[in-house]
């Protein structure tokens, strides 16, 4: 991959909006959800006096970690796929998909933007639910300033307006544009090669790869990932002049190994035991029904 932003500009744009949204960055829908979650955690802190309530701010911190890791992940996903030089022959000859396939992405992009900018309109849809559960309408409490600003349930608990943030961007944009007019009227822009330390051989092989990009994170959380690597080198007279080199890197799937696999084994073992019940003999089944009936009668008595 790589370099697709130039060859598939529309796909790149849709992907970028999606990446910003999922990384919980303003002003899109992911940010609104995260903001509401943080507010709920703050409210939750006030509901109890016991030490248990420490869980609320600590889970807020974990949410921040997840958000920031998601951002790192999607910088990697977008950056390695769409930016820089194409890293493969296929990527170099990529072109936009058929319009019917782009429409799908466009719809999702529009949904991200609309949900992000007008959250108060959609919170209204939740009113029947909150009315049933708590007897109160949510939307009347969190909609401020005619639905432009999203508020917290608590008095003065905090407000946010994604639409307002976008308006701020629009109003502040004349500052850099004005600076261009004042100072940069005579300056020219030209295209040039990327600085390659004067060697004039900048190839896609020198770019960061996805594995390289996430290496610091793997190293920091190595207690969790247990990264392993294997390097095989073939050489004639000195290991410094390798004729061929093979590199392999593995990450242990902690959750698969420690949680899902034991659980799966347990379930399979239990179902194997239970299977003996279903022997295919109709007499046995009649016996089960009879015993169940007896037991039920005993309970009824």
């Amino acid at each position: 991959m790589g370099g697709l932003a130039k060859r598939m500009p529309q796909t790149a744009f849709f992907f970028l909006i999606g990446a910003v949204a999922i990384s919980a960055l303003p002003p899109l829908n992911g940010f609104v959800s995260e903001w509401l979650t943080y507010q709920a955690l703050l409210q939750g802190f006030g509901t109890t006096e016991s030490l248990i309530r420490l869980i609320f701010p600590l889970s807020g911190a974990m949410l921040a970690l997840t958000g920031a890791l998601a951002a790192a992940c999607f910088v990697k996903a977008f950056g390695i796929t769409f930016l820089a030089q194409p890293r493969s022959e296929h990527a170099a000859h990529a072109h936009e998909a058929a319009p019917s396939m782009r429409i799908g992405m466009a719809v999702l992009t529009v949904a991200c933007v609309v949900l992000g900018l007008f959250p108060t309109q959609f919170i209204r849809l939740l009113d029947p639910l909150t009315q049933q559960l708590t007897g109160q309408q949510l939307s009347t409490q969190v909609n401020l300033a005619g639905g432009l600003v999203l508020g917290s349930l608590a008095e003065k608990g905090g407000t946010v307006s994604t639409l307002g943030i976008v308006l701020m961007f629009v109003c502040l944009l004349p500052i850099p544009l004005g600076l261009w007019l004042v100072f940069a009227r005579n300056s020219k822009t030209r295209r040039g090669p990327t600085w390659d330390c004067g060697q004039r051989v900048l190839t896609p092989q020198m770019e960061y790869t996805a594995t390289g990009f996430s290496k610091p994170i793997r190293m920091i959380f190595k207690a969790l990932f247990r990264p392993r690597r294997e390097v095989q080198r073939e050489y004639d007279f000195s290991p410094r002049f390798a004729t061929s080199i093979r590199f392999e890197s593995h990450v242990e799937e902690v959750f698969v190994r420690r949680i899902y696999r034991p659980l799966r084994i347990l379930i399979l073992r239990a179902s194997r035991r239970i299977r003996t019940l279903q022997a295919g003999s109709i007499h046995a089944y009649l016996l089960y029904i009879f015993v169940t009936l007896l037991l039920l009668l005993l309970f009824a008595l």
Partner: protein
Amino acid sequence: MNLDLPAILAQTALLLLLSPLLSGLIKNWKAKLQNRRGPRIWQPYFDIVKFLRKDMVISEHASWVFSVTPYVLFLTALAAGLMVPLVTAHAPMSLFGGALALVGLLALGRFFLALGGLDPASAFGGMGSSREMTIAAIAEPAMMLAIFTVAITSHSTNLSEMVLASQGADWKFLDPSHALAFAAMFIVLLAETGRIPVDNPATHLELTMIHEAMLLEYSGRYLALIEWAVSIKQLVLMALLANIFFPVGLAADTTVAAFGLGLFFFIVKLLALAGAVVWVETTNAKLRLFRVPGLLSAAFILATLALVSTFLF
């Protein structure tokens, strides 16, 4: 919805004009403390104007993302700045977002800067982006926990409300929860502004740079915009620390005298924080990259202690 237009304009102007001075001051003081003469404190203004006038060279590999990045960085830094109380307790744009929006806006700027670093196909840019996103990922929980601690005592994520709450009767200069949260936030400030134990703002040595590595391919007016945005971000974070933890001398009413006094106190607080940053930068060596998580975990633990001490005291 009442937006105070003069206040918005005044705060934007203050952010734009004061931020290069703060960067210049830190550079100058740092040099003085190391027995060098150092650049004039006005040097960042000259740099910005010089960069604005220069021609631009854009990498032939770069796409439109590269050109969008400087604008996003500049606008997010300014928008975040308008949500922070500077001279008065009332930030002009606090209705549109508080502490959470501020963190989000700065993260949006960082997201784009990391993409801008990857775009020109240079290995340096990729290295900078990778490290920046990693450090941000481990700094964010500490920052959020410290903010939460303050938000819990003030029952609000609105920065103006936070400042008003800590200005009130509860505020004690050495309240343990505030002091510990301040220590955590100070470490996060060093990480977020790329200061020495985490990153070295003065180096262009391949293996040590983080922030500068992402900017290597920027030139001319885009570089001016990025440099300015970075110093605005620094001012915003320092103002956040200064006003939340030391809410002294904020203008209470709208008279000229109150504003003057507020501005005076604001600048004094910034100078004290800048002095602390310079002192840390001069007395410490840059940490090896994989030692940085240790420092930021310390910030996280300090923030956790701050949180626990809200119960005890």
